[in-house]
């Protein structure tokens, strides 16, 4: 029969992430801390347990990550500002209804300053470029209500140049198609109302081909399945309105089998160690597939769908209908 989603257990797991740990791994991931808080919060929202983490404490933590020199957010107090953490900060504050804490003009300036002549965005002053950062910029500007300040043609032009022979998109111009990069490009195009840049049939087919006999999804041909692709592939298909091309039952079973039913959380594949990254993406996948008891997730913003809709930001995507029982 297979397991069900153990929501109370995963909620406890997320709550425990902030607690005492002698774990070296925990502090070596300081550069991900703000992202991790966003992943945890989003998972809680989808599982309808948003209040499992204290709101005020969270907002204060986010604000403590403010890098006043740059005018944006770092991943952890004392870390330099970065687009990844800046987006996470904005997403958390929107979900906690605390966006008024933020110096919007300064952040907008920071974001726009990272756009390169080619149209792509750098992640920070270090200059690393990646379509992930392009998505962060577009999403953040949209949430801040300043998307109109973006040079859309220049931005879309770069995405266009990242389109490969298989219909997919890579991290940079010339790079191989990869499901995570496909999602950031497709979601950015969705926000910019430029989905006509996508060869929908070819790309949706490429995405559907990610499903392996186990029911799980991989990120590129001939690679292993991993629960996180349940988010990137499914969200992309949802935006392209071809989510039904995936065998939902088999994927749901795969995600559920990757749960750690002893300690909580979801892992990249059955038997491995759980982490908050795979927990949110597993839960996100289940939500899009209509798994009962979960809230709707917006696949463009990877945030609660109702919240995004209330801000007038909902785009034309489709998830599977929510079942009433497994």
């Amino acid at each position: 029969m297979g397991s069900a989603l153990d929501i109370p257990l995963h909620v406890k797991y997320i709550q425990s992430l902030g607690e005492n740990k002698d774990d070296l791994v925990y502090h070596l991931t300081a550069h991900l801390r703000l992202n991790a808080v966003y992943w945890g919060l989003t998972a809680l929202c989808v599982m309808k347990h948003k209040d499992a983490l204290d709101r005020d404490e969270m907002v204060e933590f986010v604000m403590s990550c403010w890098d006043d020199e740059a005018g944006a957010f770092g991943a952890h107090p004392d870390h330099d500002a970065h687009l990844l953490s800046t987006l996470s900060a904005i997403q958390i504050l929107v979900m906690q209804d605390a966006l008024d804490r933020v110096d919007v003009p300064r952040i907008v300036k920071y974001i726009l300053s990272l756009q390169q002549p080619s149209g792509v965005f750098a992640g920070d002053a270090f200059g690393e470029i990646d379509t992930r950062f392009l998505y962060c910029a577009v999403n953040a500007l949209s949430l801040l209500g300043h998307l109109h300040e973006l040079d859309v043609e220049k931005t879309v032009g770069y995405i266009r140049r990242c389109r490969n022979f298989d219909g997919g998109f890579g991290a940079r111009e010339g790079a191989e198609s990869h499901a995570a990069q496909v999602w950031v490009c497709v979601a950015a195009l969705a926000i910019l109302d430029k989905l006509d840049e996508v060869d929908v049939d070819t790309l949706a087919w490429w995405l559907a081909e990610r499903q392996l006999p186990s029911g799980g999804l991989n990120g590129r041909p001939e690679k292993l399945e991993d629960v996180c692709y349940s988010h990137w592939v499914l969200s992309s298909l949802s935006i392209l309105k071809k989510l039904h091309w995936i065998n939902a039952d088999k994927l749901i079973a795969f995600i559920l089998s990757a749960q750690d039913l002893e300690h909580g959380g979801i892992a990249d594949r059955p038997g491995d160690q759980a982490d908050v990254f795979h927990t949110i993406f597993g839960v996100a996948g289940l939500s899009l597939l209509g798994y009962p008891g979960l809230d709707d997730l917006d696949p463009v913003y990877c945030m609660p769908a109702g919240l995004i809709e209330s801000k007038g930001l909902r785009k034309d995507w489709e998830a599977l209908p929510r079942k009433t029982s497994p």
Partner: protein
Amino acid sequence: MSELFADDPEWADVVPIRQYENVNPIAPIFYSEEYKDATDYFRGIIKTGEMSPRVLKLTEKIIRMNPAHYTAWQHRYKTLIAIKADLEEELRLMDVIATQFMKTYQVWHHRRLLLTAINSVDVAVLELDFLRDVLKLDTKNYHTWSYRQWILAHFNNETRLWARERAYAEQLLDADVRNNSAWHHRFFVVFSSGVRLGDEDREQVLRRELSYAKEKIALAPNNLSVWNYLRGVLEFTDTPFETLTSFVEPYTASRRLASGEEVLDLDNPLPSEKAELPCVAALEFMADIYEKRAGDAIAKAVEIWRSLADERDVMRKKYWEYRIRDALQKA
């Protein structure tokens, strides 16, 4: 013997700065002694803005413990430039770190910055060689491949950089025909980044690439990468799928022709002994040919899609049913 900066007299003049203390964090950090010590001193020299050889030692230590500490990388690079360090020596020093932490973004970005600053084709040649060694350890490493593609495009040197790339991709595909990264690289080198020296006869290039793809399909037909490659080549060159009918047909059969039945056709290699038939990708391809032919051929396409939906590729049943509906609607 203590390895801590706190116990090192050479660092006595630096004021270490503890991780923020006043805020009650939602996500507290607990450090190992060495990491805490190193990052305390790092914050100390960030505050004073120091850029010196000892800062290189400090940042190296941090990076070896935590290669994703992007601020340490940033400051290291700024320091290298400020003190006019030997950047080629830095590359060599970083080789071990790149190999050890090849899945970390920062490692590769640092090398890209160095290559850009050094700005030498000689060094780019060495770098491509180094990447071959890295790819031996992880043939599909995404960062390594896209970094390789950047080097080629950035320096854009036909004779010294581009010239050996197709052969390199081929070498990897001979070792593992399912290496999607290598197929992508081949397309990148041959088609999507300009015309290579010696490839000016595009007809000849097309024949060569089709022949190569067919040969690899014959070897292992149930390989998505090579079929994607084949389709990509046909679409890029505006070559009708129809022209591959004779080649694809044997792959759609349920069994290989018994020996004696087959006619040797070098242009259309038959499935190898071990090939599992019929090949789903070949059926799909054949259905696309029928669909493009239109008219009476649509029924044949529908028949194939039906068999895929019901038997051959049930996982994607809804997709195949979509193809049927879509074709019948247009007919």
